[in-house]
């Protein structure tokens, strides 16, 4: 049936005589197409004899030629050694024990090398001290292959020869003889017996040598207090494993406080054993990693912390109590006092406040308690800087008293608050030489930039703790024309010895005491057998103590009274260091830049943390924008007239009202690629090298775009994701109560979810079956595992823009959750109490409230990687069977088979699958280490580098498990417990991640699987994961 309906687009069409309609009907394009514009010069176009047909012919021909050429396989060359080194078998890794001692991080480590290239850092478990690595140490192997390294000595940007530099320095040293001018050495903390000896010899050989040790992030007051009390410039050693009660006043001892390395001892004490675990109370301003792990965290500004500490001393010593605290803070302190008094020797008090009185009182309290965790007799030597000496050196420089300045391992032009003063002083120095592995602000300003070795190319020794020695040995020969400072110093002293010879001589004469050098070198560590301390020093110390007993106590009294009077005018700024950046010397390391901060989960930059209340008064906001990114206001920070503009703001739950926090180490510009120049330089505000400053804060215009990995902050009362309980309940009640297995309905009966299954199970009782246990009590959230995974599995770096779009590639993430109420238990209670949609207990408003973290929340960390589900939802939806299950329990991913539908990622309840949106290697858009030949040397040859368009995820380090199995097969033996490791489990010095074969019934993992605390993530989904967690237990015992 034909219809006479007419369709019209416009009213004008109804008029049959409309000329415009007619014209539009006739002409395809309303206007002439501007061909001239894009074909350019018409004349030359006409004169050219390439017509359209020719053009098509050429296109056709070249396409055909290109595809034909592609048919021919490339010729691959294979070049063997001419003379193969005896110890290198291509394809087999060798491990060397060495030590990192870069002035900020000190640890004994093992370095995995393949074909002579260091590719991975492991913990050295033979080391009793400093055997734990953190995220920065794990990442330091990449800094070796930094393409922005200094590749030879330079002078004012021009390349020079070492001989020129030597000649200049030697002639200057000679010229300075008798001139009265100083030869100044401004160096990092070495804690090295050989370097100390060498510098002493240099001092003896030349007059007027002034050696100043400078720590970018100083522990000056702690060092002064220790020196005043014990006569040595060192830091007391603490063993948190031995403490039942840990009280910290602003000490972030799980990250970098006093040199760090305390977390493994702490974690050991945190795992409930025989119904006991340590209790940790933290008084602090910033939400630190340590505070996040505390059983009780009291948010206090630094000035209130001082008052609290003063009170603590008074109450413990029974003297008059001065100063006032607010009600609940007072009760918190009082309960701490009561708990300490119950068992004084099992308690320990620490503080990270840079204040002479505070540090003196802390030492006095620990001494008074007789704390077993406190060890001043074998102190740590990892910080030796002297702020006063640095200041006087700058004074001398400006007064023209310094003839020659040599710096090593420090970057004062970047990290000094008074860098301008240093610069003007430097201009008055006749000759200056800066040893540095990278170009930086200091090497720019000095006469010579002496390219120095990376620690993996150097020889050295370290005494991390008195009597505990470690050796630094090179794991690769110098990549560039570089020299280490000690070698250069030997050369300038006219010695023809190498620094290696020098160290062996020192060790055989005064350290080894007859033990084997080779053994020490192989172990990487050496502990002096007999009496450790220098007998002379011990005697004098003892004398000192007797003599000073009286004056010390009087000075403590005055210290306490001065603490009681602490007050702050205005906002207090607490400067801190992040576990991912430290003092900033590895700022050009893309792994560390992309490493999300454990607390804020922000990568690529620093920010000022502000409490919610202060943000409201200042009008500062954080908001999530449409593309999912986090934006934050900008502020201007002013300290004593020095200001930092455009500092982005993060509103930090748990930040003490009246205080703000800002991390050091960011904001480096010189010698850095543009992408790496992130954040603001907080050192400008680090006045007097004190981490606490009084600050003026003003809002400025604009919004900052953060690259934040986790936007949702709370658990929304879902207690089944991170199960937790209190020590009391844990000890007294059945595990069914605090580790409740979710129930589902089967035939209208409530049955445990674990008993219901959609699928038939495979028999996994034969062979290996890998499982991983993650103990939420031992995990501090430090993130060493994240970087270890990065290094082991060739995980690409994607850059700030991509992270902001939630395209981060980390195979292992550490989720951080805040409670919305006072505690997670209250959150759960609140959710359970929801009644109806609206009203006081309505879920509509209630869930909205639950999204907001509390002002001082409980915090929980949860590392999440692929859970290797036995009944994996991802496997069933892959259209090309690219992901499948192995008998050993691993969920396998065949990258070459993946076509990138991302169904698996959508179907994964744990959201652990990562998609390669781009080609991240050999791509100028991602100019990180995988875009240059040098950076690619860190790539693990046993793991594929993924291409664009495929999904990747945690493989449970199948390359490592397969290697362990093969080694055993080749040796014809069974595999011992502990041999199976993944990158994360071996990096975790806290013992939070344990990996192994549950079919080995004797193994730790099999035992952990049967533990009462064991639970699976999202158990009710029925995925039957091979990763399980241990319920977090909090010691909430207040009495």
């Amino acid at each position, binding site marked *: 049936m034909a219809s006479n309906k007419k369709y019209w687009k416009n009213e004008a069409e109804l008029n049959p005589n409309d000329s415009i309609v007619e014209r539009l009907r006739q002409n395809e394009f309303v206007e002439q197409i501007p061909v001239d514009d894009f074909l350019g010069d018409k004349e030359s176009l006409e004169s050219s004899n390439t017509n359209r047909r020719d053009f098509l012919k050429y296109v056709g021909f070249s396409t055909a030629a290109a595809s034909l050429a592609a*048919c021919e*396989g490339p*010729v*691959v*060359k*294979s*070049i*063997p*050694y*001419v*003379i*193969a*080194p*005896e*110890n290198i*078998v*291509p*394809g*087999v890794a060798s491990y060397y024990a060495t030590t990192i001692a870069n002035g900020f991080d000190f640890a004994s480590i093992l370095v995995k090398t393949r074909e002579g290239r260091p590719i991975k850092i492991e913990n050295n478990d033979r080391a009793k001290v400093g055997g734990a690595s953190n995220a920065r140490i794990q990442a330091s192997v990449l800094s070796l292959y930094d393409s922005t390294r200094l590749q030879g000595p330079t002078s004012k940007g021009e390349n020079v020869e070492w001989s020129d530099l030597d000649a200049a320095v030697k002639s200057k040293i000679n010229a300075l003889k008798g001139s009265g001018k100083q030869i100044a050495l401004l160096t990092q903390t070495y804690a090295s017996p050989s370097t100390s000896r060498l510098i002493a010899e240099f001092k003896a050989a030349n007059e007027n040598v002034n050696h100043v040790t400078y720590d970018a992030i100083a522990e000056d007051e702690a060092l002064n207090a220790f020196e005043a009390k014990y006569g040595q410039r060192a830091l007391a050693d603490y063993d948190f494993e031995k403490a039942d009660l840990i009280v910290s006043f602003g000490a972030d001892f799980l990250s970098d406080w006093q040199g760090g390395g305390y977390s493994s001892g702490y974690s050991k004490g945190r795992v409930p054993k025989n119904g006991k675990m340590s209790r940790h109370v933290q008084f602090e301003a910033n939400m630190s990693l340590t505070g996040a792990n505390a059983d009780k965290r009291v948010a206090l500004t630094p000035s209130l912390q001082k008052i609290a500490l003063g009170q603590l001393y008074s109450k413990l010593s029974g003297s008059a109590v001065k100063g006032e605290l607010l009600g609940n803070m007072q009760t918190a302190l009082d309960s701490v006092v009561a708990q300490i008094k119950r068992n004084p020797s099992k308690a320990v008090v620490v503080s990270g406040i840079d204040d002479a009185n505070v540090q003196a009182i802390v030492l006095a309290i620990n001494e008074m308690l007789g704390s077993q965790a406190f060890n001043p007799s074998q102190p740590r030597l990892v910080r030796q800087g002297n702020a006063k000496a640095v200041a006087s050196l700058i004074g001398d420089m400006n007064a023209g008293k310094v003839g020659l300045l040599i710096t090593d391992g420090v970057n004062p032009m970047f990290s000094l608050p008074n860098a301008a003063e240093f610069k003007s002083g430097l201009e008055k120095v006749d000759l200056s030489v800066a040893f540095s592995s990278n170009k930086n602000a200091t090497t720019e300003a000095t006469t010579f930039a002496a390219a120095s070795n990376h620690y993996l190319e150097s020889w050295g020794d370290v005494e991390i703790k008195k009597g505990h020695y470690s050796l630094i*040995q*090179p794991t690769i020969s110098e990549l560039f024309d570089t020299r280490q400072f000690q070698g250069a110093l030997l050369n300038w002293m006219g010695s023809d010895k190498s620094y290696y010879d020098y160290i062996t001589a020192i060790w055989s004469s005064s350290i080894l005491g007859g033990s084997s050098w080779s053994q020490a070198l192989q172990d990487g560590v050496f502990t002096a057998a007999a009496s450790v301390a220098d007998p002379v020093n011990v005697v004098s110390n003892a004398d000192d103590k007797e003599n000073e007993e009286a004056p010390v106590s009087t000075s403590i009294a005055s210290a306490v009274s001065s603490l009681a009077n602490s007050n702050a005018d205005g906002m207090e700024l607490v400067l801190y260091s992040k576990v991912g950046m430290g003092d900033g010397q590895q700022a050009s390391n893309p792994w560390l830049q992309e490493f999300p901060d454990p607390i804020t989960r922000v990568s690529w930059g620093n920010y000022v943390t502000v409490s919610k209340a202060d943000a409201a008064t200042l009008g500062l906001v954080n908001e999530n924008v449409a593309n999912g990114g986090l934006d934050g206001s900008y502020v201007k920070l002013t300290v004593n007239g020095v200001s930092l503009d455009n500092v982005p703001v993060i509103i930090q739950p748990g930040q003490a009202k009246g205080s703000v926090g800002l991390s050091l180490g960011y904001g480096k510009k010189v010698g850095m690629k543009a992408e790496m120049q992130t954040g603001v330089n907080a050192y400008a505000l680090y006045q007097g090298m004190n981490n606490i400053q009084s600050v003026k804060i003003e809002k400025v215009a604009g919004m900052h775009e953060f690259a934040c990995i986790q936007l949702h902050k709370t658990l929304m009362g879902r207690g089944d994701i991170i199960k937790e309980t209190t020590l009391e309940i844990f000890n007294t009640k059945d595990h069914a109560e605090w580790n409740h297995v979710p129930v589902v309905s089967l035939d209208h009966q409530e049955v445990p979810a674990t008993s219901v299954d959609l699928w038939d199970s495979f*028999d996994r*009782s*034969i*062979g290996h079956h890998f499982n991983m246990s993650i103990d939420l009590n031992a995990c501090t959230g430090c993130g060493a595992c994240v970087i270890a995974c990065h290094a082991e599995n060739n995980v690409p770096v994607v850059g700030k823009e991509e992270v902001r779009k939630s395209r981060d590639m980390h195979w292992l993430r550490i989720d951080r959750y805040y409670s919305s109420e006072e505690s997670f238990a209250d959150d759960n209670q609140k959710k359970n109490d929801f009644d109806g949609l609206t009203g006081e207990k309505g879920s509509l408003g209630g869930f909205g409230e639950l999204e907001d973290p509390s002002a001082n929340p409980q915090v929980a960390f949860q590392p999440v990687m692929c859970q290797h589900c036995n009944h994996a939802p991802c496997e069933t939806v892959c259209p090309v069977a*690219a992901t*499948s299950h*192995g*008998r*050993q329990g*691993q969920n*396998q*991913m*065949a*990258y*070459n*088979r993946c076509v990138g539908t991302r169904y698996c990622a959508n179907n994964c309840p744990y959201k652990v699958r990562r998609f390669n949106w781009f080609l991240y290697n050999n791509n100028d858009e991602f100019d990180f280490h995988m875009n240059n030949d040098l950076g690619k040397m860190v790539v693990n040859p*046993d*793991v*594929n*580098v993924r291409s664009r368009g495929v999904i990747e995820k945690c*493989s449970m380090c*199948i*390359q490592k498990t*397969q290697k362990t*199995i*093969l080694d*055993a*097969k*080749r*040796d*014809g*033996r*069974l*595999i011992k417990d502990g041999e199976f490791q993944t990158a994360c489990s071996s990096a975790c010095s806290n013992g939070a991640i344990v990996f192994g074969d549950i079919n080995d019934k004797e193994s730790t993992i099999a035992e952990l699987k049967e533990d009462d605390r064991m639970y699976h993530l999202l158990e009710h989904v029925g995925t039957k994961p091979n990763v399980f967690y241990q319920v977090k237990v909090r010691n909430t015992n207040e009495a």
Partner: protein
Amino acid sequence: MKKVTYRDQVSKVLGISLIVFLLFSISVFAQADSAADTAGGDVKKGKALFNVNCAACHNLKRKSTGPNLYKVEERLAEDEGLDREWLYAWIKNSAGVIKTGDAYANKIYKEYNQTAMTAFPTLSNEDINNILAYTAAEPTTPPPPPGPEAEFNGTQQQGFSNELILGALALVFGILVFMLVSVNKSLKQVMKVNGVEVEDDGKKLPIWKAFAKNQFLVLISVIFLLLTSAYFAYGWMMQVDVNKGYAPIQPIHYSHKIHAGDNKIECKYCHSSARKSKHSGIPSLNVCMNCHKSIAEYSGTPGVAPLKEDLAKGYTNEFYSAQIDSLYSAVGWDKINQKYTGESRPVEWVRIHNLPDFVYFNHSQHVEVGGIECQTCHGPVEEMEIMEQFSPLTMGWCINCHRETNVQVKDNPYYEKIHAELSKKYGVENLTAAQMGGLECGKCHY
């Protein structure tokens, strides 16, 4: 961080190199069996003793690790005035002679980099007489290989006979065709003569037109054609980048046939890392020098005449010796002065077996644990003059082998439990690699 010297390597493999050297030396120093007794010794016995005891370090005419020994006694007597007694003492215990301060002993010791000669206390004076007789005898060159011409004629004969058969066949076919044509012609003529009218079949459609009109037939044949072409296209596609038979020209013409075949050197002597690593490893040049320090020239395989095909391709003794020279120039070995010059340049071999990056293959797993012969995958390497890829190296090929090959569980405690349990489960006596889990994706792709 030990510094490696080639000398360490030499001492390690001295035993093997000795054996290898002997295999060569038989031909290098081949002498007429009927050599007469010279200076009170049996040349034949002397040759045997020389080859067993001396040849690792001494050559008759050329300086090697030790001096050349041709007419050594005569030369010593003339130049140094040393008699046979001195030689007895020296050979039995050279270090002792050096200690006595003997001038010539110390001189020669220093000349050869202070490398002490191995003491041979087990050699009797008579043995030494025999050896000296051998060194004094005029070495005879090995009999020339059978003239290439004669052999060439032989094969020509063979070729000729083939051609003859082919020619005869062609002739037969030619005659047949001729006969058919002439029969047809004569039949037609007969018809014409007899006036028989051949029926006009003009109405009949030609067969191809009939075919074209039958749509069903056309459809069937199109489907058939498409299927066949798809089959062949698939087959062709699947061989893209399968480089079976890839035999590139290498910078040094290294003959596996001579080394592994004629001289029976164990594969893993050179490719030693196949035992413990994922790579079989291309031997570093110092491994070559373990033997080639003493073997400076090629003189054929004893008792085997070179094949004429090889000679035709230019594989003469001189050609092979030139390859040894290019090894020397690569490793930086001065063969005249018997020392390293220190100027080396690595050899850029062309890699033959290329697995894609996304495949993990471990040689030690197969060679050491699995006990698989190298030849299983690499083919008869000992017969390959030019090394080539023998297997397709496709996934199907790997998988197939995993399905068919049993795991070597014997005397390996690792497998004890798992084998007992798994074989019970599968009800088999011997487990295949596939049953062991060798077909899982993640075992080779990570």
